[in-house]
């Protein structure tokens, strides 16, 4: 692990902290409740003991108590720790006038009070806190008061509460360690997934394997594989495009290099002229490829979406075709337009014109003389369409004339049209040509809602 990754937040660590914090909170609550219950129960026990002793003493026909010096000390009971559960009770018996009839234990003499029941009294010098219970007999002639030291009661309470809370103290670290191990083991599939994702290589057409069977991962694995697929398809498209661009540029450059080499040798004037003309034509061709590349780069800009406007497809087609009048006349092609009037789409005028020009260019360059080329437009369920069809055929065409039909030459132009259609949310494809045409390329655009 690198220092940077150590500094980064860890889900395992976070989960552990939260679980330990929750555990600590629960344990603290348990200890607090246990302590309070212990204290409360110890107080109840003590009070119950006082009350039962008072009741017992009250119903006895009491003989005079023995002198304090002759009182028997508390017996040691080994099973009771330090006599915790054998409190030092004091008993005080008075008549109705408050005169002490009998007294036992080491409690200081409490002031007489007519009131019966439990009370907390500060007795002696220095004052110490005592818990007392007073009760009169049925004739109200005799009062019995039973007392116990408050600190004895508190010690008992602490002992009971401590006994209740102590197991929690031992369990806390054990449970914490067990939870840590459980969380670490439980998160191992997630760590494995994370490791696999980190090791994915787009270039090698890799996929996340099916070794992550947990359904919680299904959507993540599916999404990552989908993204990888998209990324790989995108890389493949870019590779194809680069290959096509390389081909388009290398061909005229190769030709220029060869013509230049031939000009260095002996050539007849006619051959020299031909080589020079070929260099000029190849340079123009390379320039055209660069123009196409620039157009392709512009067509890839996403902000073009915001520059859409309503366009009349018929007007656009007529304008583009009119621009090819001279070129088609020189190359011996027949150009025409055909479609319904007033069909409008939402589009980027320059890009749509560029796409259409590419298709018309291709048709002119890659079909023999006398080919009929028609730009058509219309609408159907899929949307508005604009297509370029031709009746060009390769049958009976001489080899030299076939030369310009190479499918590799069509690639870049078609890529540009596809990109333009992507920007418009449409698509581009070759479709089965309707009679009398032999080839048809169609752009489909969304209709204006």
């Amino acid at each position, binding site marked *: 692990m690198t220092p940077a990754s150590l500094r980064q937040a860890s889900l395992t660590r976070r989960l552990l902290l939260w679980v330990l914090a929750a555990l600590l909170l629960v344990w603290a609550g348990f200890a607090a409740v246990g302590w309070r219950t212990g204290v409360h129960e110890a107080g109840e026990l003590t009070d119950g003991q006082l009350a039962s002793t008072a009741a017992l003493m009250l119903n006895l026909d009491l003989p005079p108590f023995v002198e304090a010096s002759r009182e028997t000390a508390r017996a040691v009971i080994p099973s009771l720790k330090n006599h915790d559960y054998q409190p030092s009770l004091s008993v005080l018996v008075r008549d109705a006038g408050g005169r002490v009839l009998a007294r036992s234990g080491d409690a200081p003499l409490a002031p007489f009070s007519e009131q019966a029941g439990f009370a907390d009294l500060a007795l002696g010098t220095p004052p110490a806190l005592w818990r007392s219970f007073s009760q009169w007999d049925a004739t109200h002639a005799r009062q019995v008061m039973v007392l116990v030291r408050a600190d004895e009661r508190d010690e008992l309470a602490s002992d009971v509460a401590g006994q209740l809370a102590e197991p929690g103290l031992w369990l806390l670290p054990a449970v914490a360690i067990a939870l840590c191990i459980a969380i670490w083991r439980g998160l191992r599939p997630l760590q494995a997934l994370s490791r696999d994702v980190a090791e994915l290589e787009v270039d090698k057409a890799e996929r996340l394997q099916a070794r992550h069977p947990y359904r919680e991962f299904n959507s993540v694995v599916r999404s990552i594989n989908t993204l990888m697929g998209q990324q790989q398809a995108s890389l493949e498209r870019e590779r194809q495009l680069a290959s096509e661009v390389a*081909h388009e540029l290398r*061909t005229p450059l190769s030709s220029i290099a060869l013509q230049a080499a031939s000009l260095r040798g002996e050539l007849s004037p006619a051959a020299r002229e031909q080589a020079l003309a070929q260099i000029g034509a190849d340079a123009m061709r390379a320039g055209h490829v660069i123009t196409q590349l620039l157009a392709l780069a512009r067509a890839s800009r996403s902000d073009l979406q915001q520059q859409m406007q309503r366009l009349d497809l018929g007007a656009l087609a007529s304008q583009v075709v009119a621009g090819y009048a001279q070129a088609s006349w020189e190359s011996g092609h027949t150009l025409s337009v055909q479609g319904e009037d007033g069909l409008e789409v939402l589009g980027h005028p320059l890009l749509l014109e560029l796409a259409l020009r590419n298709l018309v260019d291709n048709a002119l360059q890659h079909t023999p003389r006398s080919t009929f080329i028609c730009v058509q437009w219309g609408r159907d369920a899929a949307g508005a369409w604009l297509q370029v069809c031709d009746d060009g055929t390769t049958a009976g065409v001489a*080899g030299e004339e076939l030369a310009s039909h190479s499918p590799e030459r069509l690639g870049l132009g078609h890529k540009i049209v596809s990109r333009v259609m992507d920007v418009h949310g449409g698509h581009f494809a070759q479709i089965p040509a309707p009679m009398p045409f032999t080839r048809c390329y169609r752009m489909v655009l969304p209709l204006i809602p």
Partner: protein
Amino acid sequence: MRILVVEDDAGIALGLRTNLQQRGYAVDACASLAAAWTALCTEPFDLVLLDLGLADGDGGDLLLQLRHARKALPDPLTPVLIMTARDQVADRISGLNLGADDYLVKPFDLDELEARMRALLRRAAGRAHPLLVHGELVVDPAARTVLRAGEGVELAPREFTLLLLLLESRGRVLSRQQLEARLYNWQDAVGSNAIEVHVHHLRRKLGEGLIQTMRGVGYFIPQDERA
């Protein structure tokens, strides 16, 4: 040496033809697979320069067809050098696996192309050494020079090619038709005694005993007994 250029780009085909002709090769160019196959079936070529992306198909198909040829023409062992703009490693591997002898990516240096062509021609003739040595004669096909007993001899391009053909076929008789087919392309006007004239010039420059005539059959250079 007769070369068939199969290339659909008119500029490249023209450039190759002009340059290779300037360097003494007889060059014919075809722009389609069909035309190239017809040419291969009718004339013997020493080497084919093949483009892959052609109008009527992939050059690889022509290569496969050539390598599986059964008749005398086309010769299935004709060396083929692929020259294409496809530069991916996978394309090169695929081209070589189809049976190409070499692969060159456009644009290429003409000298490199010729060096590769010479290597292929040398390999096809069963030679490993770049120089042809016959007695006191040393021929360097790359530099297009001839030394006789250490002295340089000036030869015209066709004379040089004729000497090369005969040296590479030492001990075998080559008919006048065979020599014409490998010295001239379709466009060249060939006189009825053109080969005789070239042989005469070679004998004058290199000695009467070098090239032997087998009357009614053709010409040959005997194997060098000292070799």
